[in-house]
């Protein structure tokens, strides 16, 4: 039969942002796929070169509005590495705390998007309802629901408010109960099983070769979590077990994220219990020379900032490594052999965020 190319995007409910997936179909079967990105390119790496180190935190927040704290946290770590300073213990714990709150909020946003992708509108309403609780917590500690501008080079902006731990534990206890409902609404749905189990399979070797990281890689059977492998901030003091699944299909990717939310709840409880007293911010130098890079486990995978300073108060060069940028180009491997209707089920499970991908 004649083969033809179809554009899934740039405006398509599947894309969750502005990008284009060109698929080559033979009848209903996908023969090849080709992502096309760059619609949201804002020139971050260039803009950051004319702003002072501290001011860039505002920009890095906006790399991904769903998971802004994890991004500015990564940038601050890289700058600290270059300047040779370290955040005080309480600052490190507050960073871990907000990071994990942000990770849950981000995974819930993904869940809210994945439900309607597969025709399950209830999941959207429920997941956003739960996400609001975590955004309230973030608002309590940082003053804003999104784009918090909270991490600072050398620590965090402010201490946590009075009784914050009490609110936090209350929300987590409530959320643990609600998460069971979420699992049930997805997993007991026969339709959901049919559309995700065995669909969009990616092998472990391929995933590593193409640079896939984060939950997508752990769903392929690789025990790779930078919080455990290359621990930063207070993570060495906290104990947790990375979630690994071996199937490598869309269902495994869904499952990994659901389980990760529970792990994040544990980490928040541990961080609150071990929270040390003392200062939460140290003073960074205004000018810096040298280079430094740090990588963190972002909500979507391995985030890396590489910062070079030439003795000025602005960076000479900043490099942003986005996990989605690599993962999305492994999409053709997951697509081939599946049907056109599966595109949504596969791309939804990767958790695309175009803001960080296009930089």
């Amino acid at each position, binding site marked *: 039969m004649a083969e033809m190319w179809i554009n899934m995007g740039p405006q398509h409910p599947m894309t969750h942002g502005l990008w284009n997936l060109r698929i080559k179909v033979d009848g209903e079967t996908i023969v090849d796929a080709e992502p096309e990105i760059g619609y949201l390119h804002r020139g971050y790496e260039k803009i950051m070169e004319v702003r002072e180190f501290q001011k860039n935190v505002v920009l890095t927040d906006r790399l991904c509005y769903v998971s802004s704290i994890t991004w500015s946290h990564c940038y601050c770590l890289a700058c600290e590495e270059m300047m040779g300073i370290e955040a005080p213990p309480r600052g490190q714990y507050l960073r871990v705390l907000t990071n994990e709150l942000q990770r849950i909020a981000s995974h819930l946003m993904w869940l809210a998007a994945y439900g309607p992708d597969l025709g399950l509108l209830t999941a959207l309403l429920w997941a956003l309802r739960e996400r609001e609780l975590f955004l309230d917590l973030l608002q309590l500690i940082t003053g804003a629901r999104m784009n918090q501008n909270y991490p600072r080079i050398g620590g965090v902006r402010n201490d946590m408010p009075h009784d914050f731990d009490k609110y936090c534990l209350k929300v987590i206890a409530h959320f643990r109960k609600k998460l069971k409902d979420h699992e049930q609404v997805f997993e007991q749905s026969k339709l959901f099983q049919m559309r995700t189990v065995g669909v969009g399979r990616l092998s472990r070797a391929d995933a590593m070769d193409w640079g896939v990281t984060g939950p997508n890689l752990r769903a392929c059977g690789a025990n790779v979590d930078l919080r455990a492998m*290359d621990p930063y901030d207070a993570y060495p003091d906290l104990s947790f077990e990375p979630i690994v699944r071996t199937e490598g299909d869309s269902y495994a990717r869904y499952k990994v994220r659901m389980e990760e939310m529970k792990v994040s709840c544990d980490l928040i409880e541990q961080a609150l219990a071990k929270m040390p007293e003392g200062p939460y911010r140290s003073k960074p130098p205004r000018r810096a020379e040298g280079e430094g890079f740090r990588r963190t486990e972002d909500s979507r995978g391995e985030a890396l900032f590489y910062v070079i300073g030439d003795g000025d108060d602005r960076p000479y060069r900043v490099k942003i*490594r986005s996990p989605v940028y690599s993962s999305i180009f492994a999409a053709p491997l997951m697509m081939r052999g599946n049907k056109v209707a599966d595109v949504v089920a596969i791309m939804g499970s990767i958790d695309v965020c175009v803001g960080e991908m296009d930089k």
Partner: protein
Amino acid sequence: MGVEGEVIGKLRDRFRADAAIVRDRVVRVGIDRNDLVPVCRFLKEAFGVEHITCITAVDWRDRYECVYHLTSWSRNFMVQINARIPKDDPRIDSVTPLWNGANVHEREAYDLMGIVFDGHPNLVRILLPKDFEYHPLRKDFPQEVDRQYVSRRKIGGGG
């Protein structure tokens, strides 16, 4: 001696590279552009470096530099390779045959910095439009404003 010492020793013996330990589990290697593919192949085969984290191109005043961040998940360490490229001939060999993940990072470095990767299967622009004429991350590509914030008091107007 951990895996970092082993990596440094072997790279010094085989390629006379200036290698150093940056911190735990991180090694920094400075090489010339001609050594890049042999060094990468050696790291992949001898130490199981299976993941390419990113490729950064830097525009220094006297040279270009391609910075490769490579990761080995199995042995849990990272190598940063700084490959020097002369200013008047921005070309370097592609590592896409070794890791498919390098493909998009090399396209990005070509797009934004204009480094040509020899042997790349599909070296076209990725983030910018196909008909864009410049490589904006180069230092000779100006930005509209030098400083973003100008004090009103300094320019003598307004409150």
